[in-house]
């Protein structure tokens, strides 16, 4: 029952926000919140029909719906927004909401890591990239390419398969207990059992760092004239 409810909420979001994000207005940022609140209100109004279900709900679950809903709204913003910087901001929202989900399932440390790294570093990186590639000035009218129907089918199909799979597994039904892992446990694991992957991860970071510097380094020769871009 909860699964069905979650699916229904998500689909409502997809439908509503797709319509909303066809435009470029600033209000689009607020729209998901409004829609969410409206849906919540609707839910409360209709609650006397579903007394059992409602009484079964409790605070963490509702918070999860809101956080998850916002994450979905952010995800839809990333893929549907018509302005590049709006899309970047939506991404930041999604990342932060994901951190919220981590906290809700008792993995706080991961939530903090998520906020630090994603919200702090990756987002800035992306916005810098947008600036360096002069995205806003040269962006096209529509940011979605000509193959969006196929992408819709693919994404939709994948989502459908995954959700159906999740719904079929009997052992996962009604599982609600979470275990809390301390930082102690994680730290011990990192430096004891998983020390090798830890070191390799640091190596990966160094390689990425050096590689990024090498690739993005400015050429000694002057930039090629614009004629080269048309030479195709």
């Amino acid at each position, binding site marked *: 029952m909860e699964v069905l409810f979650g699916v229904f909420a*998500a689909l409502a979001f997809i439908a509503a926000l797709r319509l909303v994000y066809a435009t470029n207005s600033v209000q689009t940022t607020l729209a998901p919140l409004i829609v969410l609140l409206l849906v919540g209100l609707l839910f409360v109004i209709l609650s006397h029909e579903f007394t059992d279900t409602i009484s079964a709900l409790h605070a963490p679950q509702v918070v999860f719906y809101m956080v998850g809903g916002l994450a979905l709204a952010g995800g839809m913003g*990333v*893929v549907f927004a018509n302005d590049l910087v709006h899309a970047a901001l939506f991404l930041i929202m999604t990342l932060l909401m994901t951190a919220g989900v981590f906290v809700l399932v008792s993995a706080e440390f991961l939530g903090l890591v998520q906020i630090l790294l994603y919200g702090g570093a990756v987002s800035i990186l992306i916005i810098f990239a947008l600036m360096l590639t002069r995205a806003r000035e040269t962006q096209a009218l*529509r940011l979605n390419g000509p193959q969006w129907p196929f992408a819709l089918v693919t*994404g939709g199909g994948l989502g459908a398969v995954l*959700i159906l799979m*999740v719904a079929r597994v009997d052992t996962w039904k009604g599982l609600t207990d*979470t275990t809390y892992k301390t930082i102690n446990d994680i730290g011990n694991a990192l430096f004891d059992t998983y020390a090798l992957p830890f070191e390799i991860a640091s190596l990966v970071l160094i390689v990425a760092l050096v590689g990024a510097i090498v690739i993005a380094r400015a050429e000694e020769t002057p930039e090629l004239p*614009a004629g080269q871009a048309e030479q195709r």
Partner: protein
Amino acid sequence: MIPLQQVLVLSALLFSLGVYGVLARRNAVLILMSVELMLNAVNINFIAFAVYLAPDKVVGLVFAIFVIVVAAAEAGLALAIILRVYRNERTANVDEVDLLKW
């Protein structure tokens, strides 16, 4: 408190949104953002399974940390490449970079 299936559904939906974004977006940076979206969805999945299904193991969380690390590294590298391509082709639009065309 939160049923596992709902968390998994959330993860699935985020993932498929990310897939759509990778395939449909034209700007290279937007594609990268969609990839970050997918990685996040995967992270939610890992952590959900680690917390709900493996009470005595911490491997899921550790792996999620590694995913975050690698995602960050890859984001940096990908953006470097995008900058390079932009410098050569004067465009960040992946539809216009078809030098391998027949």
